[in-house]
């Protein structure tokens, strides 16, 4: 039995790894790519210490398919990568979603497209929230903004994956992966052996009829039925698993919408707004899919301008616009290519929009 309450100064990547260990993850498969190697290296060390499975695979394709195999046996399995590697994993993620296997996938985003660079970016939002691979499916996408949240949301990801039998993605970036902050382990560590048996898992057919897990359903009527079932599951997730944070929204006339690292910068900028008596708040989606659409829509009752701040040229903004249903102005401050703007830069953008709003409402 490990202690319930422990506090440690940790790097973001290590917090993800330790959360996996404490979630009873028994199999980790990964391929080196910057800026997430610290997760793979941490897992190499810790999985060896704890007598669990670690493989440095020959490719991201192999890693995600090893996750598929391990998950089919009922094991909690995880892989991590960064943007170019995530593109390679999409085939496997589509299969895992179709075969309804639980798994946790971490994307520590970097600048793109192509090889791009290794600086923090948020340009994989579309890929993460729209399924990413082929076919009609979704992955649950959680976007932490602190090292504590990297820990908490990774733990939650394993539970969600098991509950809904679906891939869950942690969408972070190079900044979050590298930064060090204190982490409180405010939960109980689970050993792989503590986890309940999964009644669908493949463990050999001794004493029961044989099972198979597949995604190929040649009969269009049955494939439609399978898709309906997935769709209803996704609807359940949309109803139950939305997570977001609101900051200074009481009395606000304008709000910044941002997630992850961008939300940290936005919070600092909003604090500066508060100092200047500007009525500006922050909506921070924590679950990117399901997206906090209702919170955005409800904010349009009093918010006159939603400013989306993304480290991309505008991907989340599409969800914000869809959610706002045209009821308020939505604009973008995007910084792509791995550039991380300062709170002061963002504050200036907010100020311009805020002053324009003030002139218009006069």
């Amino acid at each position, binding site marked *: 039995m490990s202690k319930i309450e422990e506090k440690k100064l940790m790097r973001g990547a290590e917090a993800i790894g330790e959360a996996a260990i404490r979630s009873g993850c028994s*199999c980790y498969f990964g391929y080196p790519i910057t800026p997430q190697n610290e997760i793979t290296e941490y897992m190499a060390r810790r999985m060896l210490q704890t007598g669990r499975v670690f493989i440095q695979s020959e490719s991201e394709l192999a890693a995600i*398919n090893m996750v*598929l*195999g391990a998950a089919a*046996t009922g094991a909690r*399995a995880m892989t991590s990568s960064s943007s170019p590697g995530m593109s390679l994993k999409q085939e496997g993620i589509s*299969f895992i979603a179709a075969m309804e296997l639980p798994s946790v996938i971490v994307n520590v985003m970097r600048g793109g497209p192509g090889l791009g660079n290794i600086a923090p970016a948020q340009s994989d939002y579309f890929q993460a929230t729209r399924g990413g691979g082929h076919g009609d499916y979704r992955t649950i996408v959680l976007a932490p903004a602190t090292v504590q949240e990297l820990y908490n949301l990774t733990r939650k990801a394993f539970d969600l994956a098991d509950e809904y039998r679906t891939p869950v993605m942690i969408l972070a970036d190079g900044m979050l992966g590298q930064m060090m902050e204190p982490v409180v382990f405010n939960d109980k560590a689970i050993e792989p052996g503590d986890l309940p048996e999964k009644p669908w898992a493949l463990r050999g057919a001794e004493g029961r009829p044989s099972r198979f897990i597949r995604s190929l359903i040649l009969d269009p009527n049955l494939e439609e039925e399978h898709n309906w079932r997935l769709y209803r599951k996704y609807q359940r997730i949309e109803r139950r698993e939305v997570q977001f944070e609101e900051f200074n929204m009481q009395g606000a006339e304008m709000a910044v919408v941002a997630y992850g690292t961008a939300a940290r910068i936005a919070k600092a900028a909003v604090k500066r707004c508060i100092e200047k008596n500007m009525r500006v708040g922050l909506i921070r989606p924590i679950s990117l899919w399901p997206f906090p659409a209702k919170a955005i829509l409800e904010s349009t009752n009093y918010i006159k301008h939603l400013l989306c701040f993304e480290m991309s040229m505008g991907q989340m903004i599409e969800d914000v616009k869809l959610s706002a249903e045209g009821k308020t102005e939505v604009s973008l401050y995007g910084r792509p290519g791995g550039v991380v703007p300062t709170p002061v830069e963002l504050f200036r953008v907010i100020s311009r929009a805020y002053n324009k709003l003030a002139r218009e409402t006069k």
Partner: protein
Amino acid sequence: MEKRRAARPATMKNAVTHYCPGCGHSVIHRLTAEVIQELGIAGKTIGVPPAGCAVLAYFYFDVDMTEAPHGRGCAVATGIKRALPESIVFTYQGDGDLAAIGTAEVIHAANRGENITVIFVNNAVYGMTGGQMAPTTLLGMKTTTSPAGRDAGREGNPIRVCELLSSLDGAVYLERTAVNSVRSIRRTKKAIREAFQTQIDGKGFSLVEILSPCPTNWKLSSAASWKWIDEVMSKQYPIGIIKDIREGAAKDAE
């Protein structure tokens, strides 16, 4: 007639396969199922069929099975075996699946010495998609995507998978057989048994490459297909134990 000898093993479902007349898959399924039954490992076996003609193998084998994306069988099998070391894991893969899109996966599974068994069916074409050129298509052989016949300069040379893998220290048992005669079918069953036994003994990666007729895409009769394996195919792909470095193994075969 010895009636019982032809009985369906309990490791096969009572199903009619979708395979074409003269296809080798039904025979290879049967041999694999018999070996699993006879070794008494059915209750802990997990199979991984390919994308290809055998994609529906879970309708025929009565053991736990999971699909794998095209070519990824050895990666999926690695995940299963590492997560559940007491299980017996086999992939069943065709030449497109294993020797083209899945080349990296099989090489690295073999190189890691994954304790799994690969049933590799080489019929020199992509069967399910309609007879396109495979990495194993012979020189001069006409397929829908090598209409003038495979030419080394244009389409490259046929890959010998067993020989390719034989340089890897983790690959401990590699044998090539055929299923074009009673004798070769018996030999194949023995090879499959050896391969599974290798895994049961925890010795590492085993693979049986089986030259298998595809009369439909070869555009030959069944009988002519059997003859073609003997007279043409096995010249490119020599039959025999390619590698056996299991402890106590008689010797390294040529």
